[in-house]
């Protein structure tokens, strides 16, 4: 039997996903026994032209991590989709935009101003910013263009077969994916239907061990460092915003159960909803200090209550702004 061919491609990523792939530990030896990694710029010296030379659909599986926000990433994603049989959006950034997706509340010009001029450690009086083309001693040098229209998902540029959520996806999820693909290559199993998200179909609350009360109520909202967090009680009940109710399970609620920290929502929306932010907004607002004397509460008091959440957009869409319904910030015409 021919060896399985794996590609590990990358867009806007911190490379944490690749590190997590190595975290499958000794199984890596088994994987390398039956598979060849044919493309992985993080691990080896390989260029686009080498991939271009490969026959179409010659790679069995491509794990693409990172969001798409450079011309070059889009080209790379399209190239690998052409050369691969299975395309996997590996990790939150490829799946829902991830942390780089938060760039959708600004634009290229403002990003350049912050990064190349305004930060405290930057000295750039002429405001030199990256150009897509420039000439140096008679040679033309090029750089890929950063999209002005914002961060794209892998799904926006190519057809994706499977999604592996998580920042990064955990070893258990990676092993599930490997099992399925190895069985398929060995003729011992079928592939799951296209579009499958390799995680749980339920919310994270199903995997959380904390005690949850029937009549839960948030009295005051705290940030995690402001209080001593009780490891037994539901975080929401303690006033800590936890994205668990609106987030897909599959990670075993590691942050909550082992880390005593709230969920930040890297698993993306559950199968039943369109918008993770809308879903958690609804959940939090529903338990925001509703008491028996509600009729005496004024609209001003409600305003104060909801204003405790200082950055709803950043909190509710931390890992999924480009995958949300509104996708990015707009500018209202001034009347």
């Amino acid at each position, binding site marked *: 039997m021919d060896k399985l061919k794996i590609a590990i491609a990358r867009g806007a990523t911190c490379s944490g996903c690749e590190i997590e792939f190595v975290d499958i530990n000794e199984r890596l030896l088994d994987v390398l026994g039956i598979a060849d990694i044919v493309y992985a710029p993080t691990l080896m010296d390989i260029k686009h032209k080498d991939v271009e030379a490969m026959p179409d659909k010659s790679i069995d599986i491509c794990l693409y991590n990172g969001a798409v926000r450079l011309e070059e990433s889009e080209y790379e994603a399209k190239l690998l989709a052409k050369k691969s049989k299975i395309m996997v959006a590996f990790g939150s950034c490829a799946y829902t935009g991830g942390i780089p997706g938060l760039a959708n509340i600004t634009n290229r010009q403002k990003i350049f101003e912050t990064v190349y001029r305004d930060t405290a450690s930057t000295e750039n009086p002429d405001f030199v910013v990256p150009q897509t083309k420039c000439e140096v001693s008679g040679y033309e040098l090029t750089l890929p263009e950063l999209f002005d229209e914002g961060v794209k998902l892998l799904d926006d540029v190519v057809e994706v077969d499977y999604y592996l959520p998580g920042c990064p996806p955990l070893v258990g999820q990676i092993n599930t994916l490997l099992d399925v693909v190895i069985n398929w290559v060995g003729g011992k199993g079928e592939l799951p239907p296209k579009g499958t998200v390799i995680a749980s179909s339920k919310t994270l609350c199903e995997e959380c061990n904390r005690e949850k009360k029937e009549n839960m109520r948030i009295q005051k909202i705290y940030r995690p460092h402001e209080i001593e967090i009780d490891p037994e009680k539901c975080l929401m009940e303690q006033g800590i915003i936890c994205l668990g109710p609106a987030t897909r399970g599959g990670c075993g609620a590691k942050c909550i159960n082992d880390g005593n920290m709230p969920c930040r929502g890297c698993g993306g929306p559950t199968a039943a909803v*369109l918008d993770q932010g809308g879903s958690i907004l*609804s959940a939090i*607002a529903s338990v925001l200090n509703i008491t028996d004397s509600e009729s005496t509460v004024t609209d001003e008091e409600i305003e104060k*209550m909801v204003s405790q959440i200082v950055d709803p*957009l950043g909190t509710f869409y931390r890992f999924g702004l480009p995958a949300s*319904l*509104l996708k990015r910030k*707009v500018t209202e015409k001034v009347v």
Partner: protein
Amino acid sequence: MADEKFEPNILVFCCNWCSYAGADLAGVSRLQMPPHFRVIRTMCSGRVDPEFILHAFSKGIDGVLVAGCHVGDCHYIGGNYRTRRRVPLLKNMLKQFGMDSERLKLDWVSAAEGDKFQKVITEFTEKITELGPSPYRAK
């Protein structure tokens, strides 16, 4: 295009027990209202998931009005307690998305307040017409 009159698209969510009846009363009383709105009836204003509103805005709607029973009068006792928290929180978030938060409005209309429904719709339509087309329209 510039001198063409702007006709807004407005979506109104009415709860079954109060506001829908209020809208009906406004209709049967032949109260005159601008014709730019479409009503979707939900069982309670608490059924209006913020996702519905975000979905409407993503499709380019210019304004969304949520109408429910007055606080204390909810048919399900506490449905509108949730609504009155969700809408202001959603407004705060819409501001961060760069939208004018006045494109979303929450008001209470009872089954007996046909005239209030007329007033709320008229004022809201005027406001949205003044604001112009939603910035998400072209997307």
